[in-house]
């Protein structure tokens, strides 16, 4: 079990993704991710020597447009979607970890 990705690696990736998991979740996720990464590894069977990578299938290239503001002046409606707001600003918790001061 879990030979492609282990618990510690899952925790490392979770850190990069700004997610956290309980022990029970890690127990469930690790083998699932391991199975899926096993599927990913089947791609090594495909010969891609000299093949270009595809990142877009759009038929448009380097499209230019005027940089004109539209749909502005909606700060009140936007602030309604903020989890917390005061005096026209989005309010966030103190960003300095007070527990680190001790």
């Amino acid at each position, binding site marked *: 079990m879990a030979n492609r990705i282990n618990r510690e690696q899952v925790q490392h990736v979770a850190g990069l*993704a*700004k997610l956290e998991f309980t022990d029970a979740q890690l127990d469930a996720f690790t083998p699932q991710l391991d199975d899926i*990464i096993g599927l990913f590894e089947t791609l090594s069977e495909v010969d891609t020597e000299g093949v270009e990578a595809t990142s877009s299938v*759009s038929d*448009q290239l380097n499209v230019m447009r005027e940089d004109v503001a539209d749909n502005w002046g909606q700060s009140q409606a936007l602030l309604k979607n903020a989890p917390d707001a005061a005096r026209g600003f989005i309010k966030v918790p103190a960003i300095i970890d007070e527990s680190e001061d001790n």
Partner: protein
Amino acid sequence: MNYFKTDLASLHADLVAKKISSKELTQATFDNIKATDPKVDAFLNLNEEAALKQAAEIDAQGISADQPLAGIPVALKDNIVTKGMKTTAASKMLADFTPVYDATVTEKLAQAQMITVGKTNMDEFAMGGSTENSAFKTTKNAWDQTKVPGGSSGGSATAVASGQVPAALGSDTGGSIRQPASFNGIVGIKPTYGRVSRWGLIAFGSSLDQIGPLTHGVKDNASVLSAISGHDDHDLTSSTQAVPDFAAELNEATSVKGMRIGLPKEFLAEGVSDDVKAAILAAADTYRKLGATVDEVSLPHNKYGVAAYYIIASSEASSNLQRFDGIRYGYRAQDVQNLEDVYVKSRSEGFGDEVKRRIMLGTFSLSAGFYDAYFLKAAKVRTVIMNDFKAVLKDHDFIMGPVAPTPAFGIGAEIKDPLTMYMNDVLTIPVNLAGLPGLSLPAGFSNNLPVGMQLIGRPFDESTLYKAGYAFEQNTDFHLQVPTLGGQN
């Protein structure tokens, strides 16, 4: 009223002739949704007050013959933003989110004077194939309420299939329009990448996502696609290609005579159920009888599509979903000590399991030391898959095959096994990777559950798919059968 025995052209004729007003039609639509939705759970939110007001305004102006969709109700998947109307992507993260602008497709439907009656359920952020990943409710299949409707556009598919609306919009990143259309016995199209603007579609896999319509019949589908297509300055991947009046090309004379159709042997291989295989082989015979040639062809790298897709789509998703950080909008965790806590706890509490799985897979595939082996490799395999399609479509007008390997499965049957769930998309995913149009339409039944057929075409050649779909529809009766929702039909 329900929409089982009508189509957009008849509704339009009745509205123009004033046999019914748009307000009456809209009110009857809400009455029926309220009566039937407790059984199927297709809708997340209804837009009753604004819809009735809009309908009354349209009635007051009068509906003329050159406004084919005016005054007719439509439903939108809840990842398509609607100004002033809650849009959640079926996520706890956006449970209270009200957009300040309309998606381009929302605007285009409003210009066509269609009436948005509500927002439909889906897998959270369009990730899933059963609508069981919704944070709010599980939609049921219109034909059997113990079965899934498919996903991720399961709410839109069930809403159409159960007669609640004549048309709905969905989005398709790896099969999310075609598979639920197939599971519900209706018509759905994933247009060519770039045909429809993605502006205002909550992003999942930006190089794969397309919006498209779900309807009862092919011609209705064609009408709605023409209305929502076209270049948009807000989406620089949207194409400047001219948009045909697709429905105008469909009539009694529409024929597949002389067309060459490719049937990939990989599409009937292991994993495809006997009933699905039989339905597709019978459809191939129908096309032969109608004067087309059906050749066995090969898409040798089709089986690698699922692996390439789950790397590419998850990588794009992990990037797109970084914006959900608990600061400006969306869910914010309460018990936090510092900024890092706001990010981590808000995301961990706000996202469901499948979304977290995709973010993890994407972050892993893009992380230092793994990028070349996973993301870059998948992007190259994508090219190889595209070349397979190009080779077949060079001398074939379109490709036919199943949409999904099986009919709808049971609610709860696969949700605990992500890999099995992912493999359901083996026949739809390659079409997104290649950016091609794919049409799903009814082609049979298996134990009273619908079986769908998929037609895949050249870039921007939705016309051929609609013609071939329409010719099939004219010569079969699968699309005329409707579910017995409480015996109401």
